[in-house]
């Protein structure tokens, strides 16, 4: 049978993983498409973080952001999670012939404003135009460079029993926001705001406070459930999380119930999940609470030997269930 690319290979879950392994890893090596968000470049005695990302979202404007703010935050957050202070980025625009110039201006304007707010400088860029219907409106692609913090995450190999797992606030807002923006007839008049924002400041704060950060990641496509699985997949460690400590807004919780979505698989664009040494969590969360993106920070679980290679959630009901990576979903092109 002829093998073709399917839409779920872009959802950030298991299928994306398989696409990397089948097609990219054989030629480019494991590191290029590893789940880690940025590469480490050595120039003389200095180490730089370097990342690349591309952005395609429908609709281009959504409650809480647009493709421009998404591009900046996407690159900034990748650098921040790798333990770097974001410094420079590039942005390339691939545009469909016939696309509104005013809309493009609006996107570029908000991209510039967001970059300024995130203290990252846009230092190079490019534009390409494709004929009408050869592309759907607009794609932005970019890359970013940052300087590593001395307390950058140590890595998965330093996990230990009782390490604490933190998240900076309510999950699922971006995924739900896009779903509703795309299906306005489902919930007329209601909207959920995307969490699209930078987590660079709180990532830096965590590194200032603790020398015991093992890993940080922004759970975008595939959601928190997928990222937690990526942390411990194939290791001797497991993760135990607690349903009642996972922050979710009442609106998103109710909507998930209505549509049958698992909030752990909904995308985020302004979330940071970190695994830190036992005892460091409280101090980090107190510091995060001072920032608007960290107001609702929670400790959601622990690293444990009990479930090697698996993520298990202790349920409010008293039972337990396995949390898997996102498999199939019906919501492509969200970031």
């Amino acid at each position, binding site marked *: 049978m002829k093998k073709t690319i399917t839409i779920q290979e872009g959802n950030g879950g298991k299928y994306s993983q398989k696409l990397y392994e089948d097609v990219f890893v054989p030629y480019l090596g494991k590191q290029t498409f590893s789940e880690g968000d940025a590469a480490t470049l050595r120039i003389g005695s200095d180490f730089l973080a370097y990342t690349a990302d591309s952005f395609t979202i429908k609709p281009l404007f959504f409650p809480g952001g647009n493709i421009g703010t998404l591009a900046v935050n996407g690159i900034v957050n990748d650098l921040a999670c790798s333990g770097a202070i974001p410094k420079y980025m590039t942005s390339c625009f691939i545009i469909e012939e016939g696309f509104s110039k005013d809309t493009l201006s609006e996107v570029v304007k908000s991209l510039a404003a967001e970059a300024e707010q995130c203290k990252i400088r846009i230092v190079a860029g490019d534009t390409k135009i494709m004929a009408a219907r050869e592309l759907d409106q607009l794609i932005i692609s970019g890359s970013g460079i940052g300087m590593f913090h001395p307390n950058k995450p140590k890595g998965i190999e330093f996990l230990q029993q009782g390490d604490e797992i933190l998240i900076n606030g309510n999950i699922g807002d971006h995924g739900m926001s896009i779903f509703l923006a795309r299906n306005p007839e489902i919930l007329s008049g209601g909207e959920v705001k995307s969490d699209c924002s930078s987590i660079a400041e709180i990532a830096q704060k965590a590194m200032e406070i603790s020398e015991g950060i093992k890993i940080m990641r922004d759970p975008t496509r595939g959601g928190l459930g997928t990222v937690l699985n990526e942390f411990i997949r194939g290791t001797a460690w497991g993760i135990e999380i607690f349903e009642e400590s996972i922050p979710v807004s009442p609106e998103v919780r109710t909507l998930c119930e209505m549509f049958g979505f698992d909030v752990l698989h909904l995308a985020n664009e302004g979330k940071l999940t970190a695994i830190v040494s036992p005892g460091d969590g409280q101090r980090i969360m107190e510091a995060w609470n001072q920032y608007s993106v960290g107001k609702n920070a929670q400790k959601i679980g622990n690293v444990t030997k009990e479930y090697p290679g698996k993520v298990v959630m202790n349920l409010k*009901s008293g039972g337990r269930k396995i949390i898997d990576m996102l498999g199939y979903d019906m919501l492509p092109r969200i970031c």
Partner: protein
Amino acid sequence: MKYSEEFKNKDGIHKLLNKIKGAAPKKNIKIMEVCGGHTMSIKRYGLSEMLPDTIKLISGPGCPVCVTPIHFVDQLISFVENNKNAILVTFGEMLRIPGSISSLGKLKSEGADIRVCYSPVEAIAHAEKNPSKDVVLVGVGFETTAPTIAAVVLEGKKKNLKNLYLLSSLKTMPVAMRAVLESGDVKLDGMICPGHVSAITGVEIYNFIPKEFGLPCTISGFEPIDLLIAIYDILMQIQKGISEVNIEYKRVVNSEGNQKASEILYTVFEPCDANWRGFGMLKQSGLQLKNEFKNYDASLAFNIPEVKEKENKGCICASIIRGADEPPSCKLFGKVCTPENPCGPCMVSDEGTCAAYFQYSVSRL
């Protein structure tokens, strides 16, 4: 959310579990949750592992995707391949069921015009927006979904849409429940009856179960407390030596059902024999368009060549649907057959026994 959070309350769950533990029989008993939605809730809330060891829950035939015969999947695929000017409108899960040689998902990835809908009503908008194309709605489901699909047909008629069709494998629940009981594949001590099917049909359709088979029945909602109350109710019936049909899900189900919905359903559809995966042909267990609506029947209006059926030999979905087997007894389960690469329908649907077992069950740890 009202009527939802209070049925997930931890204290309530613990109280009920204690009551169930107190009332649990010494000998092993088997209770079938007929509906796929119940299977999913049981796994999602970790209920089966919290119950006493003597109470075993068996999944039944109430997952619409799972009981869809491979013949119907092939028919959909054949339709898409042979009618390039058509738009197929379907629930998302149908995309992933493997047919004999392909799947709708595969055809979609190759460019076929297949639109995933959240509600069948979306088919109307597709038909209105695309007057030069034929829009075919896929009908799968039970009494719960059938009234909405009937309403789409009625709306299409009212709007005089000439490009709207239905390709249907709709089914009704009671005959399959009888088939489970008559097959003797599994000896049951009680049945948790479907919640949303009952909201449409009322309770009468289950009366034969206590009457002819002497089994206690309870119609349950989908939250953990609903299901635990239903299980407790069945235990009480067993203890008292009675068998009747009780309603736990009173906030949604009444004994007469939703007569308006039933009326719409039977304005458009009439009972017919239907092919079920797991059971084969069951008399008067399906729904077909009545004569006056036959012009909406895609199977008559379009060229849909037959495909030679080829089931995956190792797949035991058929006996899982009947409650005769459980997922771990399947050689393919979790190895060859996973939610990413399903060999049979029970691994496809969120409500499928294998998918629920694979995704959530801590017994896999």
